């Protein structure tokens, strides 16, 4: 009874017209975004448009009284799956755009045919199921509330299919982990190990860390070695990467000229 009233509250004031208005505003936007996925240059932009398409789909679901499905669509697809996509895109290459070089020779034509065929199949299937046969039974399906109805189906009639799919997904995730896993050759040096190692050296010269870079008072930059008390540059004060690249400015240019005069 309570859930029934909840459901009633949701449908109060909703007629076909607002839904139609909502559809004619969002559907063209979704279609445009879907086209944009294919046409924009940057991968991140297509991922964003994809996220937008998913959000509009969720709004459609909600308008069709599939409230739970709509919300879950946002949580799972927009929130988790698309976010992972974005992550990978950003880590792999921020500005990488698609290359149109064919890696596998002669795969373009067969793949276009296959794609069109699959699309046609889906459209014809959906068309046969929906066109000319109005949807019935929504009220009956939602009689105990949308969530409860879904839960009942998922955990009674479709429990086997549900479990099989979840097992398949877990297997896929495990497989990906096994494939991506590499045996470590040596144990990783953690911060603690490095600290211990520094104090266990025969000299404690570097126990407090390597000297900071920069020639103080005259010039201060990461690519200039610090000066030792005798005036000679300290090579360990410049980062290993810069040293390897040879991007080091000699500190002799910043030395005081009349240092001897003062000493005399």
């Amino acid at each position, binding site marked *: 009874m309570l859930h029934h009233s909840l459901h009633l509250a949701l449908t109060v004031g909703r007629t076909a017209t607002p839904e139609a208005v909502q559809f004619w505003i969002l559907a063209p936007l979704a279609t445009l975004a879907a086209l944009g996925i294919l046409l924009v240059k940057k991968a991140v932009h297509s991922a964003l448009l994809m996220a937008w398409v998913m959000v509009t789909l969720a709004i459609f679901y909600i308008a069709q009284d599939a409230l739970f499905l709509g919300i879950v669509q946002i949580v799972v697809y927009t929130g988790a799956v698309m*976010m992972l996509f974005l992550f990978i895109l950003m880590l792999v290459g921020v500005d990488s755009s698609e290359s149109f070089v064919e890696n596998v020779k002669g795969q373009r034509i067969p793949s276009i045919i296959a794609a069109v065929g699959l699309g046609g199949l889906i459209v014809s299937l959906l068309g046969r199921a929906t066109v000319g046969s109005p949807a019935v039974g929504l009220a009956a399906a939602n009689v105990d509330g949308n*969530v409860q109805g879904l839960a009942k189906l998922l955990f009674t009639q479709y429990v086997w299919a549900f479990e099989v799919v979840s097992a398949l997904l877990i297997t896929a995730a495990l497989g990906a982990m096994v494939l991506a896993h590499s045996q470590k050759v040596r144990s990783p040096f953690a911060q603690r190990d490095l600290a211990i190692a520094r104090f266990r050296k025969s000299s404690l010269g570097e126990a407090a860390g390597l000297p900071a870079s920069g020639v103080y008072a005259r010039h201060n930059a990461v690519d200039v070695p610090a000066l030792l008390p005798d005036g000679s540059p300290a090579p360990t004060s410049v980062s290993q990467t810069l040293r390897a690249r040879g991007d080091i400015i000699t500190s002799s240019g910043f030395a005081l000229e009349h240092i001897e005069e003062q000493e005399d």
Partner: protein
Amino acid sequence: MTTTTLIGEDPGWLILVKGLFIFVFCVVCTLMAVWGERRIVARMQMRLGPNRVGKFGLLQSLADGVKLALKEDLIPAAADKIVFIIAPIISATTCFMAFAVIPFTGKVTLFGHKTAMQLTDLPVSVLYILAIASIGVYGIVLAGWSSGSTYPLLGGLRSSAQVISYEVAMGLSLVAVFIYSGSMSTSEIVAAQHQWWFAVVLFPSFVIYVISMVGETNRAPFDLAEAEGELVGGFHTEYSSLKFALFFLAEYVNIVAVSALATTLFMGGYHALPGLTFTESWLGGWFTLFWFVGKVVAFFFLFVWLRGTLPRLRYDQFMKFGWKVLIPTSLIWILVLATLRVMSQRAVSRLVVFGFSIGVVLLVVLVTTLYDRSVVKAKAAATLPEVPAPNFPVPALPGQNALQGIALEITETADAIELENHNG
């Protein structure tokens, strides 16, 4: 009549009024929160904090806001312009949306209409909040990416990884609430707490939620995305002026939102403190707003207190804590809770329930003891490598006699002198 049906009968203008109320509430909360945080942290650090603009410095945030708006609005040359502008808008709009399903008061009369101060209610309200939060992450990620420089990218990745991981723990802690109240609608969850708050009944879930809400909002001690020493300002390093102000607003509105959700789900929402239930009918029911805001402010104080007390965690420790401690703990807790729930629904005898509870406690004690022992053993087994003693006096290492080192050195020096004499 339930709250949901009551809200369902709201005329259009009332819905607008409520929306305006939520917006004003959030903005005022942000202004007060910034001032309050600075004052409280200052007090904890033996300072005064802002006390010049207005009485007690109350208008300081307003002055800062005006100053921020008048700053130059920079867009870096390397930035992706459109996304750079969209990102703060996503952040700032999504943070307000969560409030749509938060019940601020019980049944009240507003301009002659009987209603409740809640914009709308869904059968899946709490999931809706999670969905909105997951869209809000886009603001952070896109800000980090579109800035076109390294620190924002790292900060954006860090904070989105953080928000996503802690959202899992948060979602799992909410499952216990769903199981116990039998609903995902906020008003029904509040109604289910009129006797016992879920913070008491579902204490482990409450603790997990409170920890993960701090992680989810990127606040100290989990503010790794803005670790000044490592990442400058994190994802908003390149932002200035009003765009930065939007991120700032979003951060504080998010804090208020998670606090409001904690209040709604665990602290009885707008219900009065135990023993003061008679106050709920004061001012025609509007006094419940006082209780709600009071609880939210208490949570906000907790946020500030944590910030003033705890140092920042290291990133790997933080992620380890989320994935290896919070998530498994909440999974086990849900398992136990679901079993207990089914037992109570099937009216199983008290003895069985009691036996089950004792069994779970014993199992937990057993497993943790075994784990502790293995850690102790592993520590004992790990031996430090032998190294030659340093050639000048140093403080003794653990397990080493300080005098031994010096004695060794003296004999070595003596040997060396002798050798030199011999050679000479």
